[in-house]
């Protein structure tokens, strides 16, 4: 990659002092965040020209963390475009981080213009499958007992041929299996790209403005390995939008799975599950306040991150947006409304100079609260501070949660990042990160936190959704505080990862765990070890 040499191990994140951690428990928690970049055999992503000339090339390609062979470590799928096959790398680290390309061995030979990927057990056989969004027909790959992948797109009935960006699995109808939401972007003919446009007085590649948005598609899992297009039947038809990302979980606490959709330069949508039979959703985005930012302005949502920022048990929504705009943090209150509280938490103005993509709330420093990691990079190759107040290559933004604020730290390096996935790659208990640039290097960032004593809690759902995608958990601690978590695939831009266990530092003594499974069923757990790993199975 031009201008950036990968060293064997490069410490890239500055240590952060977290002054307010002292009040968080009786044992001093870890208070630094540090990652080391690890050299691997992962090949760079491929997505058109090094300098994109059409809108098709600007979004880059996605990543997925999937334990395809059920050997309890996270393998890596990489989508590639422009004729380069997608890749599957098996985790061969055994406590370190190392990946081996097994694409040919397992039959991953796709060479469509792949854009994104999502992970889920679509056929309920206990092995995670892959749905790959493309410009052109999307692809469903069924995982055959961890040994190979078979293209079942046509047979499964999921051959949407729009410009797919992100997609998500979730149990939208509460019947125990995973349905599928597919974000579609816009009508684009590679032979007839739109004329150039102007941005801040500069000639830039055309789109999305003036182009025709495409309708998202929703598939119901019929249960026999096939899917039915229920977009209209379930109420997802609306004015088509430039959809880039989505996440599926219970946003309003009624025990039903809802869908939040992030759109480019248009209002976002929040499809609330009415619970009616037959299944029906209504778009509550404008009514709830999450469609736009606090100024009433539509934004260009790329990344989505979910966490309970204000501790009220409801999922708050962070979105990344275009440069010269801010990222946005919508706080979910108990009355069905979302308030833009970006400034209050300190994550607004600092994002004006960057164009954000994948992001994630994770407790990187294992101090019991969520930190925020955002990858950035401009869509226009001619972007610079002089021309657009924003450079083409941009730093990662890392914020540490410090009391009621997120405190930003300076990070080294500037990149053309798009995708990021979060997971414990070396099985040491902390969250590591894999980041992909648009048409460029893939960086593996090993978290150097030192997990001393902690409790890791994972969920195992019922048959059909063993990963319990969409489940929520509220932990109550001995000091009376509580924290809520959602078992999602992370909502990375065009990317996905198998749900991460929640990690409770030992200084926070959990006394009660209240689980709401994707079906709405409740389960309470009251006995826990002080540390170690616990898998909680959904009760029959």
């Amino acid at each position: 990659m031009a201008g950036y040499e990968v060293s064997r191990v490069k410490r890239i994140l500055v240590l952060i002092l977290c002054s307010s951690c002292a009040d968080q428990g009786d044992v001093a928690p870890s208070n630094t965040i540090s990652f080391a970049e690890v050299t691997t055999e992962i090949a760079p992503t491929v997505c058109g020209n090094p300098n994109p000339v059409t809108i098709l090339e600007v979004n880059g390609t996605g990543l997925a963390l999937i334990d395809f062979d059920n050997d309890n470590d996270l393998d890596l799928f990489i989508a590639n475009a422009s004729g380069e096959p997608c890749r599957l790398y098996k985790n061969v680290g055994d406590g370190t981080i190392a990946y081996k390309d097994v694409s040919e061995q397992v039959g991953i030979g796709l060479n469509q213009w792949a854009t994104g990927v999502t992970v889920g057990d679509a056929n309920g056989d206990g092995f995670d499958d892959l749905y790959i969004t493309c410009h052109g027909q999307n692809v469903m790959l069924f995982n055959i007992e961890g040994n190979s992948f078979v293209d079942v797109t046509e047979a499964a009935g999921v051959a949407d041929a729009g410009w797919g960006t992100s997609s998500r699995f979730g149990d939208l109808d509460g019947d125990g299996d995973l349905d599928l939401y597919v974000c579609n972007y816009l009508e684009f003919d590679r032979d007839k790209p739109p004329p150039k446009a102007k941005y801040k007085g500069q000639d830039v590649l055309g789109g999305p403005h003036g182009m025709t948005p495409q309708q998202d598609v929703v598939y119901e899992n019929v249960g026999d390995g096939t899917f039915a297009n229920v977009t209209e039947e379930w109420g997802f038809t609306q004015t088509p939008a430039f959809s880039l990302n989505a996440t599926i979980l219970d946003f309003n606490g009624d025990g039903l799975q809802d869908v939040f959709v992030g759109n480019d330069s248009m209002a976002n949508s929040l499809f609330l599950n009415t619970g009616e039979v037959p299944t029906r959703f209504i778009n509550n985005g404008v009514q709830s306040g999450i469609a736009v930012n606090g100024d009433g302005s539509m934004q260009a949502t790329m990344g989505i991150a979910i966490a309970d920022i204000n501790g009220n048990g409801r999922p708050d929504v962070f979105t990344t947006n275009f440069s010269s705009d801010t990222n946005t943090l919508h706080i979910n209150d108990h009355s069905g409304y979302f308030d833009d509280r970006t400034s209050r938490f300190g994550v607004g103005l600092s994002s004006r100079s960057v164009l954000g993509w994948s992001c994630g709330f994770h407790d990187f420093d294992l101090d019991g609260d969520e930190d925020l990691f955002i990858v950035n990079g401009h869509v226009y190759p001619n972007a610079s501070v002089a021309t657009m107040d924003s450079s083409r290559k941009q730093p990662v933004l890392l914020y540490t949660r410090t009391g009621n604020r997120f405190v930003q730290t300076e990070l080294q390096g500037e990149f053309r990042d798009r995708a990021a996935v979060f997971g414990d790659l070396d099985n040491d208990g902390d969250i590591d990160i894999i980041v992909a640039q648009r048409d460029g290097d893939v960086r593996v960032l090993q978290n150097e936190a030192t997990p001393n004593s902690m409790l890791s809690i994972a969920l195992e759902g019922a048959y059909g959704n063993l990963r319990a995608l969409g489940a929520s958990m509220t932990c109550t601690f001995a000091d009376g505080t509580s924290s809520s978590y959602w078992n999602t695939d992370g909502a990375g831009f065009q990317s996905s990862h198998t749900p991460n266990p929640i990690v409770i530092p030992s200084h926070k003594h959990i006394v009660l765990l209240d689980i709401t499974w994707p079906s709405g069923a409740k389960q309470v757990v009251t006995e826990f070890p002080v540390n170690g790993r616990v898998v909680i199975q959904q009760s029959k």
Partner: protein
Amino acid sequence: MNLSQSLKIALSVLVLLFGACSKEQPKQVKLDSGLKTEHALILDGNSGSARVRIRQKMATHGETPDALFLMGFSYHQEQKYGKAVEWLQKSVRANGRIYPPALHFLGWSYLYLGEVLASKKAFDDFLLVNPGEPDSMFALGLLSMELGDLKHAGELFAMVSSLAPHDKLMQAKASARWADVLAEQGNWLEAVSKYEHSLELNPDLYEAWYRFSQALKRIGLENESAVALQSFQEARHRVHPEWQATRFPE
């Protein structure tokens, strides 16, 4: 506003004035009458032509603080804040002399670039030479919100209202932001009242219409909220007819 609030604000203004007098100031210059045409060109949206003329004048008369300011100001008006900062920085560092508005626009340019602390310093510096200037106080209120100090932000917005009693537009935007602070503090009733006041003064403040509609929902006035939302859409279209179904954050 009650008596104690008024006294507090008056005291704050006195402190500001005293602070300004107690420090040695760089020599202030005024806009050279020979640059008035260029200033007018920028205000008329002809920044490119203005820059050609300013460069010619600087080649002849040297890089004076006011000419450098106009270079920065021309980019600021074009919303090219990176370039604006470059020239405004040159202006405020020119030969121990200062054209004070350069600091003010430097503050705004930094704010739009997301450089919170640099922005705050520029506004603080500007207030040293121009104490109590309402728009800079307003900007410091916004920065206080970003820094998480809602209480101070509210005080600053309140102060702006008292410092600009005859400037309706300034009063309107300060009142709207004061309402934002109240809303963030969960004081929806008072927020609604402040939004109403703001929008009476300036019905074109479309962002305030939007937040007003959200606040009305919180106090159970759904119908009124819907009307305010409609007003938001109308005001937004009135102010930015170029924003249709989609928008870039220009």
